[in-house]
């Protein structure tokens, strides 16, 4: 992988004596949009802060654009970071917030003005120059924070849960906005999220993290269709994960015999991959909810609770009734770890 633009080598990050991220290796290509995905506390923010230079690594190295920046001060790295809290400067208006970094570069006033206006225009904030951050909505503040980083033309733009403070509609809007800005500027972007939907929708590649280590790295399709571990599968919505022993499926609650023998030690099904209405297995409906295009059932079975989606074409089954279902080998994702 000689085309790595950001290269993390055995990066170890700790707080005092606690290691938050042990020996992380990651290559990010130029112009790529990478999502760091993982549960709370898995080390996403820690990794970002290290790339930005706000946290110095215990060991390992960080290379950006072919240069080792491990010991380079944060203000010399040319990396932008959009904080989850935006971290706007409350005493400055929108224009001065965006112009802040340009002024430090001692650019001519006309150039500062032009770049700042262009930056504000990119995020759709033309006309808001005189507003203080406190006089702007959450979405506008977020776009302002984005513009403030973008005008610096950073080599890499890091975004820490950029969308988590926004309501659902604004979040969708900002998703497209971020993707558009990324395509327009071609900046290498790394964004943190613990929303798998967000990662799938936006990223070129997803880095799924667990306890400071990379659990799986791949395209959204890789992760969505081909999770390699039970952890990844669970994170990607495979809600039924069972062990396979001979001709039996096994859970902590019990075991059932099926008509096939799998080579993989574990099999996983999304709720939609469970066949419902017929089959060798039986479950009692303990919860049922309408989800637009389908109906979501939770079945109490010999294997414990099984989540299954039924097409609306199948008549609704009342709570407490028994439903036949199948866990077919063909729709299962085999897992080896």
């Amino acid at each position: 992988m000689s085309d790595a633009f950001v290269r993390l080598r055995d990066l170890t990050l700790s707080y005092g004596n606690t290691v938050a991220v042990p020996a992380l290796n990651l290559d990010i290509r130029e112009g790529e949009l990478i999502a760091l995905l993982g549960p709370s506390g898995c080390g996403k923010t820690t990794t970002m802060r290290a790339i930005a230079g706000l946290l110095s690594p215990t060991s390992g190295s960080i290379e950006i654009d072919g240069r080792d920046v491990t010991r380079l001060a944060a203000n010399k790295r040319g990396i932008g970071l959009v904080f989850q809290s935006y971290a706007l400067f409350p005493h400055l208006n929108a224009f001065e917030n965006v112009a802040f970094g340009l002024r430090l570069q001692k650019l001519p006033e006309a150039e500062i003005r032009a770049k700042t206006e262009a930056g504000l225009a990119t995020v759709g904030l033309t006309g808001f120059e005189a507003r203080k951050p406190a006089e702007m909505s959450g979405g506008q503040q977020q776009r302002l924070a984005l513009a403030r980083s973008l005008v610096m033309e950073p080599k890499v733009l890091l975004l820490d849960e950029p969308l988590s403070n926004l309501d659902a509609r604004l979040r969708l809007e900002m998703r497209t906005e971020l993707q558009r800005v990324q395509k327009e500027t071609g900046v290498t972007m790394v964004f943190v999220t613990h929303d798998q939907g967000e990662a799938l929708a936006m990223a070129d590649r997803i880095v799924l993290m667990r306890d400071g280590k990379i659990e799986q790295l791949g395209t959204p399709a890789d992760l969505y269709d081909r999770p390699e571990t039970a952890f990844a599968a669970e994170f990607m919505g495979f809600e039924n994960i069972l062990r396979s022993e001979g001709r039996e499926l096994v859970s902590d609650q019990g075991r059932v015999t099926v008509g096939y023998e799998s080579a993989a030690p574990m099999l996983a099904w999304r709720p939609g991959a469970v066949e419902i209405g017929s089959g060798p297995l039986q479950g009692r409906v303990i919860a049922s909810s309408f989800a637009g295009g389908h109906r979501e059932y939770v079945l109490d079975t010999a294997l414990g609770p099984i989540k299954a989606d039924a097409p609306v074409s199948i008549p609704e089954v009342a709570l407490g009734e028994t439903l036949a279902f199948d866990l077919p080998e063909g729709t299962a994702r085999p897992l080896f770890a």
Partner: protein
Amino acid sequence: MQMRSLSTWLILGLTLTFLIGPFIIIIFAGASAGNSLAFPPDGLSLKWYLKVFTVESFRASFLLSMFLAVVGTLFALALGVPAAYALNRYKLPGDELIRTIVAAPIIVPGIIVGLALLRYLVVPLNFTVGMALFFAHTALILPYAVRVVSSSLNNLRSDMEEAAVLLGCTRVQAFFKVVLPNIRGGVLAAFILGFVTSFNQVPVSLFLSGPGVRTLPIDMLSYMEITYDPSVAALSALLAFMSVAIVFTAERLLGFSRYV
């Protein structure tokens, strides 16, 4: 109901009497037409208010007190703002101890501070009285500066400085460009509190006065020992007006009481 409102009025009345009463007494005692300090005054005139401005020693000691209050407070802020910042932002070894030491002058009676400074600073180190006074007043104000500035720093998120650094600032630039503008209300509050504290300081200054070097309150005390005329009351009233005016203006401009 009737009883309750009666007792409410009673408490309010008592509170006001004790708070404002002395102030009223002083204003009138200073406005006496007679020649000795008395209340109620014998007749009313403004002559003592005018005389205050002609007493040579008052003028000198007022300037000294002014100097100590302004320059001492600025000095205390120059030390206290960085100290508060360091205590707030960095995990220092023994920062609890530092906090306690910094707060000590608020807890320890001024008279002890004054005596200690005299005994261990002025006498053995040959400090001039003026230097000792300056040192003492700076030290006295420092805890207020640290405390008031700390409380406004607590409300300031540290990620703002990190954002500034990533935009190209050094840590020092980030402090001046981002931190300071956002705590200026707290700094001004600390300045006013320090100014008033220093200006009205008696016990510490008592030990550190020498011939011709007296702060205004000390000067007023010794004036009273010799001349028992109403000019001291008049001066007190003027000083009280000055303090009230400063605090009132600050409150109007900045909501000063938020920071104290």
